[in-house]
Structures are given as C-alpha cells and as structure tokens.
C-alpha cells in the first residue's frame, strides 16, 4: 500500500488539519472531528448536519458552506462517526430553528445518529432526520438493512440546504430532503477495489477482465461480478436498473460520479453514454454533475444518480451555493 499519509492512525485528523488550513470559510474542530461553517449558527435558520465515514471526499466536509450543510462529522475511514461528534455538531449549528440530520442508510450511521438525536433531545434541541437510501442495487425490504444511501446524498444536501438558507422551518426542510431522496436512484460499478489505510490490503481482488456491479461506497464488492464492457453497455446496465425503479422522463438531475481513481476524461465518456440513453427514452437532463463527488478512496469506477425534478427542486438546485466542492451563484 502506498498512500500520501503520515500514518494510518492519523490520516483523518491530518486531512482535517489540511481542510482547516485550506478553507478559511470553515471552522474545523480537528480534535473532535467536526467541520463547521465559520461564524457560528445563523439565528432562526434550520441547521443541516451530515456525517459518515471518511474516504468519500468531498462528501461531506466539502459540502459545508453557504446554501448547503452547516456541519459535517467525519468518522474514521469507512466507519460512521460517533454520537459525541454528532451531538457537538448539532449543538453548534442550532440557531433555534432545529437541526436536520442527513443520514445515509447504513446501520452504523443510522444507529449513531439515532443515539445522537436522543442526546440532543435531552438538551431540548429539536432534531429531524432524513435517511437517504437511493441505491437500486440493493432491494428494499423491511427485513433487511434496506437500500444504501449513495449519490442522492449530494442532491439532498444541496436542495435541503438551499431551502434552509431561505429560512424555511424544520418540517419543510425535512420534507424537501425526503422528497429528493424519494425521487432519486443510483447504481454503481467498480473497475478496481480500494485499500483502506488501516487494512492495508485491497477490499477484494479483480482480474483485468472483471468488474463489480452494484457496489456501494465502502470498497465492498457489488451484488454481482461480471466481465468488463464498453462504456455504452455499462451506462445501460446502470440505467436499466434505475429505470426499473423510477421513470426517466421529464426534467432530470443527473450525476455521473467518479469513485475516486477514474480520470475525468472517462467520466465524460460515461456522461455522453448516460445522456444518449436518457435522451433516447425521452428524458431531458435539465441539470447535471460530472466528477468526483462521493468516492471510495482510490477505487476506479463510476456511479450514476438520477433525480426527477420539479420546478421547485430545480429552483433550489440553482440557488447560490458556496462550499469547497460545489460553488455557484456567489
């Protein structure tokens, strides 16, 4: 394993120190592992807190700033953060209008945020939670852990963050967050595994002709292993799975996301195939993102996320945002 780190134990805090040094607009509590907007909570504004394991950068810390998150809690690599971090963040961003927890649907994230919400409740901080679960590779069921939360998290954080910035109340912000989640679906493909600093070994082995289909964002193998195929066919595999769950017509917000180790050149090739697939089925990509937004360390591969837009969701997507990883309108 070769990584640009000082040690596996300090990689997360060293990176947080780097985030603190790079972004004067953020206030980073390196010791307690919380990333906040500089300047404290905005009175009367709903606070948005998210968090999860590290290794998915820019998610979540790269989305802290005007028009998006108020705080992010990074855990160790691929390990959900602990309730203490979430409680600190929840206190810090509470401007009196309550706090929304944006939680990706993984047992660890859900349980830790749940314990944190109970602790916040003891302090009379009003907390609502939205569970993001957009990954169509995993079928949803009452008896399982359910679908994973992946790419839609970016959409939820941007759109709910925009509504919160406008001064909407907690119920409204939580409602739009749930609406975006319900309208969004994702599917991911890995061309290579990744290596967590602590494990030091690849999470799985793939030969030069194999890929993993239906992966999450934690370096885990996918639902199936299959042969490598041209970009056009891979786009069809991902979008067939998504189209089985939500309609691909009307105005769409589409993200072609890199898993971390795939060149932008290839992501644009994928976007071209995704766009022509959707166009051929009468869908209209009104807004898009192409790049690395929710990653698995250096894993090579991509994911596609599609969200059915409404006029209101489009308006909120276009609203000004000013974070390290997503910025427009100011």
């Amino acid at each position, binding site marked *: 394993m070769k990584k640009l780190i000082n040690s596996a134990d300090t990689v997360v805090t060293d990176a947080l120190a780097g985030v603190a040094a790079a972004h004067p607009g953020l206030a980073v509590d390196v010791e307690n592992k919380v990333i906040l907007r500089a300047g404290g909570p905005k009175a009367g504004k709903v606070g948005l807190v998210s968090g999860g394991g590290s290794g998915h950068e820019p998610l979540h810390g790269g989305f802290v700033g005007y028009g998006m998150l108020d705080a992010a809690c990074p855990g*160790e690599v691929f*390990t959900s953060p*602990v*309730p203490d971090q979430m409680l600190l963040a929840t206190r810090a961003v509470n401007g009196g209008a309550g706090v929304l927890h944006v939680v990706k649907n993984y047992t660890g994230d859900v349980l830790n945020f749940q314990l944190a919400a109970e602790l916040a409740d003891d302090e009379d901080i009003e907390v609502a939670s939205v569970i993001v679960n957009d990954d169509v590779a995993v079928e949803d069921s009452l008896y*399982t*852990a359910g679908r994973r939360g992946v790419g839609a998290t970016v959409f939820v954080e941007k759109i709910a963050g925009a509504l919160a910035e406008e001064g909407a109340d907690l119920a409204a912000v939580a409602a739009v967050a749930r609406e975006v989640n319900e309208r969004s679906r994702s599917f991911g493909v890995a061309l290579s595994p990744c290596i967590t600093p602590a494990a030091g070994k690849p999470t799985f082995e793939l030969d030069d002709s194999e890929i993993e289909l239906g992966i999450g964002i*934690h370096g885990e193998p996918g*639902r199936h292993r299959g042969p490598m195929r041209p970009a056009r066919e891979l786009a069809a595999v991902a979008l067939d799975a998504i189209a089985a769950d939500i309609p691909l017509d009307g105005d769409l917000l589409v993200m072609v996301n890199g898993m971390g180790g795939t060149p932008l050149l290839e992501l644009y090739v994928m976007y071209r195939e995704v766009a022509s697939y959707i166009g051929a089925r009468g869908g209209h990509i009104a807004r898009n993102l192409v790049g690395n937004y929710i990653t698995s360390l250096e894993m090579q591969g991509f994911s596609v996320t599609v969200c059915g837009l409404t006029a209101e969701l489009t308006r909120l997507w276009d609203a000004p945002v000013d974070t390290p990883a997503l910025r427009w309108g100011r």
Partner: protein
Amino acid sequence: MDTAVFRAWIVSAAAVIEANRDHLTQLDAAIGDADHGVNLARGFAAVTAALDGPAETGAPATPGAVLTLTGSTLISKVGGASGPLYGVAFRRAGKALGAAETVDLPLLADALEAALAGVQQLGAAREGDKTMVDALAPATRAFGKAIAEGAPPDGALSALAEAAAAGAAGTVSMQARKGRASYLGPRSVGHEDPGAASTALILAALRDAATR
C-alpha cells in the same frame, strides 16, 4: 464474581480483540468494509484507559459500573454499527447488575439477557440474520440452561463460551439480512460474520476471567 473479575474480563477482552484485530478486519473485508477489528481495537483500548477512571471519580467501584463505563466508552469511540450495539449491550448489562458488589450466576444471566434485548431492540436483528445476535443469543440461552440444570460456575461459563463460538461458526452458512453484509445478498454466504466472531471472543474472555 467481584469488581476485580469484571475488570479482568474487560481487560482480557481488550487484549483478545487487539490480538485478533487483523483477523476480524479481514472477516469484515470479505463481506463488509474491512474495519471491524480496527473499530473494536480502538474502542477497547479507550476502555482499558477509561477503566482507571477520571481523576475525580476514580475507577468504577462495582461490576455494574465497570460494564456501564465500558459501554459508554465503546459508544464514544468505536463508531460503525458495532459501536452502538456493543455499547448498548454493555450498558444494559451494567444497569442489570445494579449496585451489586458481587455477581452470582443468575444475576449474570439476567445481565446477558438484558444485553441481548438491548442489541435486538436497537438493531432489530433476529437469529439467522448473520449478526452478533447469532453468537449472543445461543450463548445466553446455553448459560441459562446450564444454570437451571445446576451446573457449577465453570461449567455454565464454558457452556456460554462454547455456544457463542458455535453460533459464530454457524453464521458462515447464513445469508446476511442485516448490516453491511446484507448488501451482498447471496454472496454473503460462506463467510463468518465479524461481529459474531468478536462476540465469541469477548464471551470466551468472560469465561477465562471468571474461572481463573
């Protein structure tokens, strides 16, 4: 069993987890995200440090206090799915022991029942879902049964540890319905569940500490 025994249990559990850190992580790499051993080792290291207690209050004085502190520390340090689950398990067990200075077999059985109930309430996993429940539940049953049959302490504790180990081994053939491994669907079959494996290690440490 007095406070010293419970301290000894937790200390040797920490040692056993540290010794099996990479093994547990590799089990997790196969059907999860390759962090279970690292998570627990980090958590139990913090627990052993915490056991000497904050300067003000000093070390925990009762078996219940030892387990409650263990649980709270795991919740604060582990993260992941196993942090809250083990944390709640130890906290519930600690509460069940109340202020007792010494713990007899029936009281320990109550504590294990409480721990299991806490895990299932929080995680909603049932036996057969390929989780730590598949080690903890049969172990708790076997312990209660041994006591009912009048087994001596070492016999009951061996029954506990053996049932946990058997339960963990039994997860190999299961398809996961809870936790990360469930995302693999049928591909989760054929691998031992890391949390069940760590539970078996922790309960073996209890037997060793209590029968030493």
